[in-house]
């Protein structure tokens, strides 16, 4: 899951962003392209590069894919090779801006394909792509969450169910009493995640002995911790914004609540988790990518971005971007045309194999692998699936 900062929407923050951003353009690309027969093939993205959510890593993945294609002379369309130009617009985490930008990308810049942003914005973008009848390739939205559309949006990402399944496999390998504490934020995403994970857990033989939901921005988790202690839960599933998880982990340690297995969804995968020092050690996270899983282009990603991004989460986002853009570029090549309908048709038959594995769209969705990682000495290591993974370590940070 890509979630670089918490997304609390305070009215004031919202107003602030609106006030601050209204009128300043966020165009990262300079030359005006067109998809006429001679110029470059234009694709575009309206992505959040500032504000509450910052997705520089995904953008870097997009750019990497375009670089690769152009290094080979571009894409062959209509019998001749044409360079690809990616227009990147920063929508500053604002949905209205995103809508404007998508329209201008298609209508003004004549983009023949679009790439996504993240999370809720991707859902909102689907409607735009359908309305403009331009193919949109996205990740960073669990495939279960993609609403039914008119067929122009293609989501290649993890399945929520896979993450839960993986986690319980890992947890089953540890010695626990299988009693589980679930704590989530009290918003829609938190609630649905809690339900899904609890349901999967029951099937896997775990018992949810306590469920708590807290508002984002909670700093005092004493009642949650008390519930965990008194119910004897040794398995902890937390799905909260990073600041909430940070505060809770510190407090768990201080109040001597010692679960045996703990996963921090939406939060623990942030590189900032390393700041917790030893406290963070042993915490499990859900990943969309691992450098040890033998996925295609791993070496390329590490070579190009291993210095800029030193952790699996960020590199996974680069991989995600590379994966999405490659799917779109492959489809243009397969269509041999810049006609949006032709490209869309080619997407449905996509056989791309890229940074996130092989693609096969069913109902516009293609599942990418899920990994469970574990923090150890300031870095995340893959612990599931076993192939390419390390053995599970104990939750030493909370011991």
């Amino acid at each position, binding site marked *: 899951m890509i979630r670089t*900062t918490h997304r*609390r929407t305070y009215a004031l923050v919202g107003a602030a962003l609106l006030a*601050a951003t209204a009128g300043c353009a966020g165009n990262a690309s300079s030359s005006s392209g067109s998809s006429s027969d001679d110029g470059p093939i234009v694709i575009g993205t309206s992505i959040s590069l500032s504000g509450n959510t910052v997705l520089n890593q995904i953008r870097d993945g997009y750019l990497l894919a375009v670089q690769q294609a152009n290094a080979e002379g571009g894409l062959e369309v209509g019998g001749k090779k044409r360079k690809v130009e990616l227009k990147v617009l920063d929508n500053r985490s604002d949905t209205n801006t995103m809508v404007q930008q998508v329209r201008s990308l298609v209508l003004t810049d004549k983009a023949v394909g679009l790439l996504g942003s993240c999370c809720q914005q991707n859902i909102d973008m689907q409607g735009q792509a359908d309305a403009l009848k331009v193919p949109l390739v996205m990740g960073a939205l669990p495939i279960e969450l993609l609403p039914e559309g008119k067929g122009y949006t293609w989501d290649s990402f993890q399945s929520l169910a896979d993450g839960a399944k993986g986690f319980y496999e890992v947890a089953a390998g540890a010695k626990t009493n299988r009693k589980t504490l679930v704590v989530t934020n009290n918003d829609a995403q938190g609630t649905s995640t809690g339900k899904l994970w609890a349901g999967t857990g029951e099937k896997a033989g775990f018992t949810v002995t306590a469920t708590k939901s807290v508002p984002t921005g909670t700093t005092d988790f004493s*009642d949650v911790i008390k519930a965990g202690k008194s119910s004897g839960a040794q398995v902890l599933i937390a799905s909260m914004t990073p600041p909430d998880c940070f505060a809770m982990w510190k407090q768990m340690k201080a109040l*001597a609540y010692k679960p045996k297995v703990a996963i921090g969804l939406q939060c623990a995968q942030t590189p900032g988790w390393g*700041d*917790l020092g030893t406290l963070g050690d042993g915490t499990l996270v859900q990943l969309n990518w691992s450098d040890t899983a033998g996925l295609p282009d791993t070496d390329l990603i590490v070579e190009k971005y291993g210095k800029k991004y030193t952790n699996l989460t960020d590199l996974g986002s680069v991989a995600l971007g590379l994966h999405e853009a490659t799917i779109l570029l492959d489809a243009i090549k397969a269509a041999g045309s810049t006609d949006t309908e032709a490209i869309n048709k080619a997407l449905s038959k996509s056989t791309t194999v890229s940074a996130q594995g092989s693609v096969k769209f069913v109902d516009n969705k293609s599942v990418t692998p899920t990994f469970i990682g574990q923090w150890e000495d300031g870095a995340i290591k893959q612990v599931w699936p076993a192939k390419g993974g390390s053995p599970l370590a104990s939750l030493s940070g909370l011991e």
Partner: protein
Amino acid sequence: MSIDVLAAGILAGGLYALIGLGISLVFGVLGLMNLAHGELVIGGAYLASLLVVDSGWDPLLALPLAMAGVALIAYPLQRYLLTPLLRGDKSAPLVATFGLSLLAQALFQGGFGTHPKSLPAPYATSGVSVLGLRIQTIYLIAFGLTVLLCAATHLVLTRTRAGSAVRAASADPATAAVLGINVPTVYAMTFTGAAVLAAAGGVLTGVAQSFTPTSGMPLLLTGMAVMALAGIGSVAGVLLAGVALGVLQSVSVQLFGGGMRDVVVYLAFFLVLAVRPQGLFRKAAG
């Protein structure tokens, strides 16, 4: 209602009071609602993170340096940007602080990234037992430090000549100037004092919790709630109001569940504004 709920609320309230005190000080003396106060808090935390995360200092050792660092930024900001604006329309400095808040967020984002940061310290994750209650050590430290800083602020304001100059400039800036008091300097010093308090609150927040470039806003709102509860002009009132807010949050979570925490707090906030606009801990003026 168990005693540990109360204890947690009281301790959390210490941090609220520390943040509220700076807001209240600036508002009381300068008549300026500093919308960038949350960023001063977070700025303190980021400055400390340079020493703590990158150089391995203990956060409490980094605390005075973070306070000094924020002071160095705050003083010229007030003296050369906000004070000149205060002479004109009252809304100009307000808007300016709002702009500063956004600017600071962008700078934090550029300089430190958007990932949450936290200041690791042994006392952040250790607990102590007090009267049979287990309490997170950092909250105890934070509460102690808050009381100390509140007391220091109170003493400076009431027992020193500089403090009476501040109170004089607050009550009647024109007369203070006639007496040879450099009112713009007094304003800048007051703002700096508030920034120093903010930085301390930021470091403590960073140790106890975490921070991102955008965590200033919720802190500002909490601080404003504290100020509204306390009324202007009493340091002790601010401390009491912070504790009251903490207890209110804690108790409301216990009674109504986590979802009602903010609702209850802001309900109290509006009730106080409606019924006792001068604040809970202050006599009505006149």
